[in-house]
């Protein structure tokens, strides 16, 4: 990539990667949340299983899954790299630093929130992704599709797992609250006519996605859906 020089090794270039992968993961969450929300149709997971079957078998989706993992790893790797550099930029810490006077706690805690999400993600992938891709879904539903919904119902009988999932969604919410608008700012998409829309959309997106995701284990555990 001769003409591009050191575009991606500079501080701004590294942040571009954070912003682009972040927005990509934000788009992914819409798809993920949308398909999972099919359980709220309350038909014993039949529609949800159709969605899950499509996601598991369509080759475009499977190719997209590889891109998703690359995007996720790039986001994590770049975050680690930037964090290490940022720590080196201030070798001697302040005795007193009043961060809350000038910034939101979650904007200063993206690394911590991201780490919590990564730990959650390992648990989450083991719970569902490994089962549907590798170890196999044990039963089929009335339509003959793999019954991923049955797996979900079984996993969310465990109250500890439900609590872990719900707490993780708090991390997700705050991570997104900062990340959404931050990605636009980083990419230079700042415009007095659109800034309000971006900020507002970021808050709505973060809250709705997190509540919907958190509602799933809660609804299953308390038997609010079939």
């Amino acid at each position: 990539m001769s003409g591009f020089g050191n575009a991606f090794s500079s501080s701004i270039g590294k942040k571009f990667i954070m912003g682009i992968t972040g927005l990509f993961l934000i788009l992914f969450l819409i798809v993920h949340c949308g398909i999972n929300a099919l359980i709220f149709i309350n038909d014993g997971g039949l529609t949800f299983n159709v969605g899950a079957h499509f996601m598991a078998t369509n080759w475009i989706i499977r190719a997209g899954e590889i891109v998703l993992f690359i995007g996720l790893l790039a986001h994590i790797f770049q975050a680690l790299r930037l964090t290490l550099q940022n720590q080196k930029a201030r070798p001697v810490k302040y005795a007193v630093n009043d961060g809350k006077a000038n910034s939101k706690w979650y904007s200063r805690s993206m690394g911590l929130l991201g780490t919590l999400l990564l730990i959650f993600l390992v648990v989450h992938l083991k719970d569902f992704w490994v089962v549907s891709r590798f170890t196999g879904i044990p039963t089929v539903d009335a339509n003959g599709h793999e019954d991923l919904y049955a797996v979900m119902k079984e996993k969310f009988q465990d109250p500890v797992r439900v609590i872990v999932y719900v707490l993780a969604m708090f991390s997700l919410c705050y991570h997104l609250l900062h990340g959404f608008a931050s990605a636009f700012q980083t990419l230079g998409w700042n415009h007095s006519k659109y800034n309000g829309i971006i900020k507002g959309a970021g808050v709505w997106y973060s809250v709705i996605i997190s509540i919907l995701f958190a509602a799933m284990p809660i609804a299953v555990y308390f038997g609010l859906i079939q």
Partner: protein
Amino acid sequence: MSTGNMNLTLKVWRQKNNNAKGALVDYKLADISPDMSFLEMFDVLNEQLINKGEEPVVFDHDCREGICGMCSMFINGRPHGPKDLVTTCQLHMRSFKDGDTIVVEPWRAAAFPVVKDLTVDRSAFDRVIAAGGFISVNTGNAQDANNLPIPKMQADAAFEAAACIGCGACVATCKNASAMLFVSAKISQLALLPQGQPERYRRVQSMVAQMDAEGFGNCTNTGACEAECPKGISLENIARMNRDFASAKFISEETV
């Protein structure tokens, strides 16, 4: 200088030189006037230290009018203290209460090494400016200013960016010691005006490269810099710099 009735405990960072290990040292001050500026309070402290035969506290200051950008104290966890939109020299003791303990530290950043006590070396900023924060103009008669019409909005935005006094509060308060607000203001004040256009994309690349070379951290958009800036420099400048940087790297055919 008027005397007053405030009694204060100061915890001041004392460090002999860049290689020495520093520490916070306690000083008791009595009869401080609430009308004194923060620096005048330090003058009182230094007079007392000199009278006792001790080393006075070294701190940067120059105009004491809030426009030169020299004063640089990190007061109770905030650059230039608790007030918004003021420099340390324009901060008055009435912003504190009798009996307060005030912690005063130098700017903390790898790119701003401590020279002595509260004075840090901010020449990294000078090198960023030298890398491209200028316009190249041939000598000769200045042309009529009306030959370069500039929309009012554009002129105002450039002026607001140009209000940056280069004090380094943005770096000091940023959790990553990033200099993006400073650098973006210095890029924007030229990028917004016609005179800055010929070197616009060369400038953003050179100045960002120098910023990185100086060892400043990377921006995480917490907005602390904007909140603490004594001149109210806007985060919009950082977005503009990022946009110009992307244009320079991915669209401009000129390479630096």
